């Protein structure tokens, strides 16, 4: 802020700062977050990657990397991983774009309601979603049941334990992220622009393709990047919904650790994955500029980029949009020839109706599946068949009577509360400094604090496993909390930074002029206003931890499990209705958490 120089100083402002010592002391609140990540993220990752470059005696070697390329297995799996991620990205973008476009162009109330449904997969536990797809897509699942009943197919179609199953599961999991990212760009596109285009003579799809679409490209690119990067690190969906041929690279790392305990080679595969991710970021930066990730508008990033790739991309893009525009115009002219516009009668726009239909179908795809675990959990049979037979509470009884489930649930709860609290404790002060102070290397510090989102979780998990095994932290609550805090910090920092950016600092300045000290200003003015946002950030971190499996997979051990880990172990052995019962309980619990936080938020906001 350039104007702040003339606005009131905080009590004991400049003079006090001088007394307290050098300027960097003002930045100390950012230190805990940085130190934390250095210890539990950078350090272990360095250890792991270091292992991959030495042999059993500790002498430097490239043996492990040579092994990566000796057989074609690893390259093949990398290619499969890229293929799965690529298709997931493409499908998420193609199916998500109409939804985002619809959301961007409806009234606020309608939008808020639709967003709740789009976010449905986000809220429901990862494993609940995956089971829902098993219930839906299996040989005797709900979809096949319907298809056969309708006479569309004679025999059940194979939709699971193959590439189709992986695609359905992954697109379902990642599309919300994609839609929200695209929406954040589209919502800022001035609706008058397409109107202006149509008064200027753009007919049919010309206004969309030549004006709206190019402006939405940064959102498409950012959404695509996020989906692609996240998909690269997936293993739950491919493992549970895919076949043998759909093995992804993360599964190889897990195999190396869990089955053969080859740390060095696991490290080498991890580096391969990391290099792939970084290469993709590099390419993206060349093409569109990383600045577009932070939601900058189209013009700012795309218009004036230099470099061959960017220019070629720009020209190709323009050719593409012009071509699509002309194509749509030709189609529209043909259609208009058949049914000319009449000046005396309105013509309902067909395209808008089609958009609604497509949009609602996709929203249904996102929102509906999770609910299918509920009826199955009351079945009398021992399988996840559709339709469920009879009514019984036996699976619930089994869950509550068992030794592991209640303990795992309690542990998950404790870990999630602790990890979210710790994440807030170090993340919130860091967010304040990042928004309010200016210092050299701020962008780099921000990038560092959010990097755990970008780095595949498996790398964090395996390296923590290595570190914790030396510190005897494997199989302890402390270990889990520390690991989950690494993942929670980025979300807390991003959420709270957005919150503080929107906070009107003049309120603080008003309080200072009225005689309140810094502390009292914070307690009586700042805090009550940002409290709802802080609650949201806490909930976010809580859900991240509560639903976390990758770190739990390594840092837990024996009968010391968390809820997702217990579900995973069960699912790997045999998918059974107990899991449906647990999934239903989780669904109910998560809904309660969401509703509760919404109530807290509203109450806070109303005050």
């Amino acid at each position, binding site marked *: 802020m350039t104007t702040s120089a003339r606005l009131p100083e905080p009590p004991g402002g400049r003079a006090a700062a001088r007394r307290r010592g050098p300027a960097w002391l003002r930045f100390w609140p950012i230190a805990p977050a940085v130190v934390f990540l250095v210890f539990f993220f950078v350090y272990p990752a360095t250890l792991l990657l270091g292992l991959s470059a030495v042999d059993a005696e500790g002498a430097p070697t490239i043996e492990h990397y040579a092994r990566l390329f000796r057989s074609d297995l690893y390259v093949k799996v990398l290619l499969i991983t890229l293929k799965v991620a690529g298709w997931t990205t493409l499908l998420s973008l193609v199916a998500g774009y109409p939804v985002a476009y619809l959301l961007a162009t409806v009234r606020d109330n309608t939008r808020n309601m639709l967003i709740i449904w789009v976010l449905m997969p986000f809220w429901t536990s990862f494993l609940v979603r995956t089971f829902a797809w098993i219930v839906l897509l299996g040989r005797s699942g709900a979809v096949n049941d319907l298809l056969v009943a309708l006479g569309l197919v004679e025999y059940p179609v194979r939709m699971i334990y193959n590439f189709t199953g992986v695609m359905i599961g992954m697109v379902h999991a990642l599309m919300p992220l994609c839609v929200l990212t695209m929406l954040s760009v589209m919502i800022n596109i*001035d609706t*008058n*622009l397409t*109107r*202006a*285009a*149509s*008064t*200027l*003579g*753009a*007919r049919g799809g*010309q206004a969309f393709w*030549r*004006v709206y679409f*190019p*402006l939405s490209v940064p959102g498409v690119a950012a959404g695509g990047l996020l989906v692609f990067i996240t998909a690269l690190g997936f293993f739950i969906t491919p493992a549970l919904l895919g076949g043998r041929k759909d093995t992804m690279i993360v599964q190889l790392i897990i195999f190396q650790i869990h089955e053969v305990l080859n740390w060095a080679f696991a490290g080498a595969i991890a580096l391969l994955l990391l290099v792939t991710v970084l290469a993709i970021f590099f390419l993206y930066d060349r093409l569109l500029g990383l600045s577009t990730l932070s939601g900058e*508008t*189209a*013009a*700012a990033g*795309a*218009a*004036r980029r230099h470099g061959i790739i960017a220019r070629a991309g720009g020209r190709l893009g323009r050719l593409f949009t012009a071509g699509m525009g002309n194509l749509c115009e030709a189609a529209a002219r043909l259609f208009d020839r058949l049914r000319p*516009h*009449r*000046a*005396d*009668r*309105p*013509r309902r726009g067909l395209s808008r109706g089609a958009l609604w239909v497509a949009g609602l179908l996709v929203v249904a795809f996102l929102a509906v599946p999770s609910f299918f675990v509920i009826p199955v959990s009351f079945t009398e049979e021992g399988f996840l068949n559709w339709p469920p037979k009879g009514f019984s509470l036996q699976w619930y009884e089994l869950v509550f009577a068992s030794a592991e489930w209640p303990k795992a649930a309690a542990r998950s709860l404790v870990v999630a509360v602790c990890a979210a609290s710790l994440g807030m404790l170090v993340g919130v002060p860091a967010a304040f400094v990042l928004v309010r102070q200016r210092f050299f290397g701020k962008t780099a510090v921000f990038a560092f604090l959010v990097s755990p989102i970008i780095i595949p979780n498996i790398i964090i998990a395996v390296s923590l496993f290595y570190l914790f095994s030396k510190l005897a932290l494997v199989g302890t609550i402390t270990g889990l909390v520390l690991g989950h805090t690494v993942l929670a910090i980025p979300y807390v920092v991003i959420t709270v930074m957005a919150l503080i950016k929107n906070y009107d600092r003049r309120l603080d300045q008003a309080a200072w002029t009225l005689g309140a000290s810094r502390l009292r200003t914070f307690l009586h003015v700042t805090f009550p206003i940002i409290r709802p946002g802080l609650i949201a950030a806490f909930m976010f971190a809580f859900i991240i931890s509560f639903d976390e499996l990758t770190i739990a997979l390594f840092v837990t051990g024996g009968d010391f499990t968390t809820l997702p880990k217990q579900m995973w172990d069960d699912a790997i052995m045999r998918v059974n209705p107990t899991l449906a019962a647990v999934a239903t309980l989780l669904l109910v619990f998560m809904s309660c958490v969401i509703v509760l936080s919404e109530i807290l938020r509203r109450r806070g906001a109303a005050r």
Partner: protein
Amino acid sequence: MTDPKDYKLVTRGVRKTYGPVVALDGADIEMREGEFLTLLGPSGSGKTTLLMAIAGLNDPDRGEIWIDGKLATYLPPFERDVGMVFQNYALFPHMTIYENIAFPLRMRRQGEAAVRAAVRRVLDTVRLPGVEDRMPRELSGGQQQRIALARCFVYEPSIILMDEPLGALDKKLRDALQREVKHLHENLGITVLYVTHDQEEAMVMSDRICLMNDARIEQIGTPADLYFRPASVFAADFLGESNLLSATVAGTGGGEVALTTGDGRTLRGRARDEVEPGARVTLMIRPENVGFASDTEPDNTVEGVLKEVIMSGQITRYFLELPDGAEMVATGLTGGDRGRPETGGTARFGWAAEHTVVLRDH
């Protein structure tokens, strides 16, 4: 009824609702070629809705729109010959100035050589040559607005619609651009339908003003018509300063109306429409037509206590409190022949019958 073919633009009974909200309730407008008509009214009065209906950006529920003698009510925007300038300019941010201005020509499949010549010509017209390769955000607000105008002029539409095009600019720039738009209108001979909520802007620029209020058209006329002969209390109050007094019609005759005010005074005025004796009316007198009635003996006089005298530059305002508590304002040039009367004492205001506009109450 008039023949729509004689006009550049005709709207008849255009009505538009959004759910329960009536945004526009039966608008009738007629515009001749080359005319500058301004829709003036408070925010929310339906100006944009009418403009959008004419541009084809919303479908009216009822009514007809004729452009250039052809029925166009439900035609899509690209099949009517209109151009529109938006308040926030609506320049395409991802295109250069050249591409922005070339857009309508390319949509009309014109050859690139013709496009280049036309863009250069229109940039000269708006006095911004040489900005072809810049991006819109690299220009100032005023320059962007001129580019928006250029993008509209370049394909020579029958009618140009402008929705508060200067609303986002500061006062000084707005004054300059008002004159520029006016000159462009005169030099190019285009037909302009202009929207503003600023009465001064409407007065400065328009051939005629269409005053809108609450989804309806209150009055259409020249700026002088609206100022000196308002058709309603709303019109009288919205344009300029006015004194409003309640009265009852006592009798009519000889083009004049005799009126009785609440405290029994008799006044004389001129009615725009027919009024019957006994009707309740509101009298509108412009402050600049009111003066001290000490020396001359005007048609109408009132007596009261001079409460306040406020000098604001060239103009001084005198506030008189009447016995029934109503207030009357007179304005005059500062330091004129009147001297400075004492506040707190009694004073007499007077004005001519012809300056008393009689408005029927509804």
